[in-house]
């Protein structure tokens, strides 16, 4: 024990240096590719912390908007596994950049959460109007 400790005095530190890249297989940020998305919202439903939210367009079209909060995400990868179209959601091996105070990530996210509820109502109304229009046209 004594010689081990003496040797430690002259050996480099065991801790990793700052800026060391994460190891392989690291659980990093979720990336989203809109081209293949079918807007089934399965990822939103399975996400444990609720870090994925879809907001609805006001005109009633089916093209939803994807929002992702990397600071709320726990990087479990549940959304990637739930996605029926492989390649739409991908888990990268790099961590997301740290948030700074001037970005106000929380405030932005709260607004999106509110927007999701409000836009869904408007979207449903728009869909209803579209359906009525369609029925009239058919008659």
């Amino acid at each position, binding site marked *: 024990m004594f010689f081990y400790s003496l040797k430690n005095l002259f050996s480099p530190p065991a801790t990793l240096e700052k800026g060391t890249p994460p190891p392989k297989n690291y*659980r990093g940020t979720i990336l989203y590719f809109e081209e293949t998305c079918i807007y089934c919202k399965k990822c939103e439903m399975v996400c444990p912390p609720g870090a994925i939210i879809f907001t609805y367009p006001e005109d009633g079209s089916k093209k939803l908007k994807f929002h992702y909060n990397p600071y709320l995400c726990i990087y479990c990868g549940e959304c990637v596994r739930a996605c029926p179209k492989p390649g739409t959601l991908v888990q990268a091996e790099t961590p997301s950049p740290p948030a700074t105070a001037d970005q106000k990530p929380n405030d932005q996210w709260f607004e999106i959460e509110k927007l999701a509820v409000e836009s869904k109502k408007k979207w449903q109304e728009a869909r209803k109007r579209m359906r009525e229009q369609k029925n009239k046209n058919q008659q």
Partner: protein
Amino acid sequence: MGKKFVVPFGSQHVALPEPIRFVFTTENEIIRNVAVDFGYVHRGIEKACMSKFKYTQVPYVVARVCGLCSISHASGYCLAIETLMDIEVPKRAVYLRIIAHELDRIHSHLFAVSHLCEVAGYENLFMRVMRDRELVMECLEIFTGNRVQYDFVTIGGVNRDLTKEVYEELKPRLEELEKRLLQLKEIFEKDYTLQMRWKGAGVITKEMAQKYNAVGPIARASGLATDCRVEFGYFPYEELGYRMVLYHEGDIWARNMVRVDESLVSIEIAKNAMDNLPEGEINVRVRGNPNGEALVRWEAPRGELLYYVKGNGKPVLERLRIKTPTFSVIPVMKELYYNQPYALVPDITISFDPCLSCTAR
């Protein structure tokens, strides 16, 4: 007969890793009465699991009950749901769970050992154990993708597979760790200072362990053969080279040695499981909602962990009850303090490896 003094220990104290409060009534250094109070880190996890989260999301929530034994909580819950819903987990997933579980046990045990060294005043050995623990932390980081919260176990299997690259990274690290642990064991067996401090101090007899229902390494250090890993046979531990570590002294030294020996056994189990990994799926799809109730007793690093789950056919559970190992050992801990010198309090407390954030949830 001396004058009586009231000495509070905690809720914040240098020797304590987590907040628990003891109020000792001492008489000339000798403790005559103890009052225990915990619950400083209550987070309402049980209630959150029953109201806000679906049952498929709960493994990720209960994993946050404890930082050191997160995988035990997740697999305990998953086992309960799987027995309730009659899900058969693939054999490969079972083996992967065993590997993650045993690696987690090693790092939790080494943390306890190192902390005990620090409390005994042996700072140098504390640093050494922590440095060796870094090897198993690296293993877990490579294996599960994260250092502390693994999020590895889900209902019906596991999330990540053990590829050949990962296997080649893990194997030399575990062998190196085994070598270092054997060196550490020699130190604990022969070191004069530690023997003087730990041998014969804070003795739990077998009768006492039985009477106050001690669990885990504390019971095994007193000669009480109890281990939920083999008692219930959820996982095939016996075919992977499991053997029970038993010491009969019941003192602080024995509790420490149980942890060191168990880490060695865990390395063996993890290595055997990695070598004999069966082929096949790692996950099965889960359909439907839980209906009925199930109770699972599962061995966390600190002892028996109890999960009770009740579902009523809805996606949100009706009841989830967690009983943690530290909660079970608090009665015997309290009993042990009587007629001990006050100077032994930090050693006795830390030799139980208390996890209060588990207990308060």
